[in-house]
């Protein structure tokens, strides 16, 4: 098969040109222009976690299992090398500054689900030296595992411990690989991506769908009529360490 001049022009010239223009455009307008930017309505994906519902079914890890299966998250025995996208910690650990001296033990010891907060002003994307992690126009803090050099500056910058580093090859520690989602390679940082790949297909995040208690409410925070916004209007919610000015998009109903 001969490559005609037309082919040559199309594949090399145009793609190079297009890539160059795109690069130039990106550098001028700071955040990468996403397709959704074209739509008139702004989007900021967010999540509300109802802890009272979660407390009702203590010890249920359906959300974690769903996430692990969907994203090929390795189950590494060595705690030091663990990879976590969504996991649970005691209430006192998650909200250290929101504890009162005489709070009931049931509250302080309840397990609270944690995940990346997809901050409005994320410290991790600020420090990344290669723009391997960045905030999309729809508020999702994304990771580009092709570009990450593994410097772990974002791990140091994240105040929520949401980022994990692949200290070893994750593949041997994955029970069954979901071919639709890439595994990661050793030496890159990863974290929750708000199931960006499911959102693109019009689905809700895996944890949201998997929860039997409907603890998670996911939606567009920029839309005043969305489900999470209605919940936040009705009930008192907290964010993790709001005093750091990061503006988490994950809210907890206590």
């Amino acid at each position, binding site marked *: *098969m*001969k*490559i005609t001049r037309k082919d*040559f022009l199309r*594949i*090399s010239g145009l793609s*190079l040109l297009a890539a160059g223009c795109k690069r130039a455009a990106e550098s001028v307008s700071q955040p990468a222009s996403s397709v959704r930017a074209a739509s008139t309505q702004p989007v900021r994906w967010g999540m509300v976690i109802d802890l009272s519902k979660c407390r009702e079914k203590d010890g249920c890890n359906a959300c974690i299992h769903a996430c692990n299966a969907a994203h090929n998250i390795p189950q590494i025995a060595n705690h030091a090398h663990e990879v976590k996208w969504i996991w649970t910690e005691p209430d006192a650990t998650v909200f250290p500054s929101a504890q009162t001296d005489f709070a009931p033990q049931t509250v302080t010891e309840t397990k609270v689900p944690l995940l990346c907060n997809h901050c409005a002003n994320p410290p991790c994307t600020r420090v990344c030296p290669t723009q391997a992690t960045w905030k999309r126009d729809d508020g999702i803090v994304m990771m580009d595992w092709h570009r990450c050099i593994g410097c772990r500056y974002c791990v140091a910058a994240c105040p929520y411990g949401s980022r994990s580093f692949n200290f070893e090859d994750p593949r041997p520690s994955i029970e069954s690989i979901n071919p639709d989602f890439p595994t990661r390679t050793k030496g890159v940082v990863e974290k929750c991506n708000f199931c960006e790949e499911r959102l693109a297909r019009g689905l809700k995040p895996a944890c949201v769908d998997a929860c039997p208690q409907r603890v998670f409410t996911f939606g567009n925070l920029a839309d005043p009529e969305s489900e999470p916004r209605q919940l936040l209007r009705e009930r008192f919610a907290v964010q993790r360490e709001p005093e750091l000015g990061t503006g988490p998009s994950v809210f907890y109903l206590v």
Partner: protein
Amino acid sequence: MNALYSLLAVLALVLAGFACGQGAPARMVLATFVPYAAFAALLIGFCWRVARWAFVPVPFHIPVTCGQQKSLVWIRFAKIDNPSTRWGVVSRMAAEILLFRSLFRNNRARLSGGRLILGESASLWLCSLAFHWTLLLIMLRHLRLFLEPVPAFVNALERLDGYFQIGVPPLYFSDVILVSAMTFLLFRRFRDPALRYLSLFSDYFALFLLLAIAVTGILMRYFTRVDILSVKQFALGLAAFRPGASQALSALFLCHLLLVCALAAYLPFSKLMHMSGVFLSPTRNLANNSRSQRHINPWNAPVKTHAYVEWEEEFRDKMQAAGIPLEIENETEDAGNARTN
């Protein structure tokens, strides 16, 4: 002028390559006949040159070297720079061939305030070293096209060369180093008036030709793209004496091929023969032991000598008769005495 002519010559070759890419008969000639002719020229020419050198007598044992020669036991001598044994010579040759030892001594003479200064000049050594090593690496990498199955070391070289993930296909660092080193070597000749005066057509031609080969190769790999499958088929066909050019081979590839053929055919008749010549340089490949061993040149014609002792012997009677004092009064008794004198 020399530079311009050689540039034009290389450009003519490039154009010829492109022109061959257009017509089917020309393609056939270029893809089947030319490589064999060039390769035959390379092999025969190379062997012929080396064989001729092998039969040239080395007239002297040339001790022109650097460093202290081996002499008295308490004087430290340069074992590698001025070897006295065969192993010393081997290490000196290795330093010369692998590290360009003698070029390492290069310095640039200049006048400053009426004073001659032999200044630093690391760039020539560094760039030529970089150029030659990357050229070797690139040639070894090309073996992937000629050998099936591809040997593991060729794959390893390829992975190492493209280790840093820059673009697709990954950028080879050897390509970058080769082209920048060659550009330096070229501009070195333009920059210095003395060097420009010394440079001949052949100096520029070799540089331009190699540069053109590198550039066409780089263009193919990173910009216009080439169907590597047909290239490999073509290369394997050449090796198996079953040549045949697929239609998928682009004009640029044929151009690259023609330039390589030109280089191969030109090599035995050019200064590029320093490739084998370096092994035969007598100032490098001979041990400097002429003080401890007598080297007799086997080709020397026998020289008729007539020493004083012989002369005295011849005229002994006449000298004695004339009362002229003799060095050796009596052959048998005073021989030792005379020797001490």
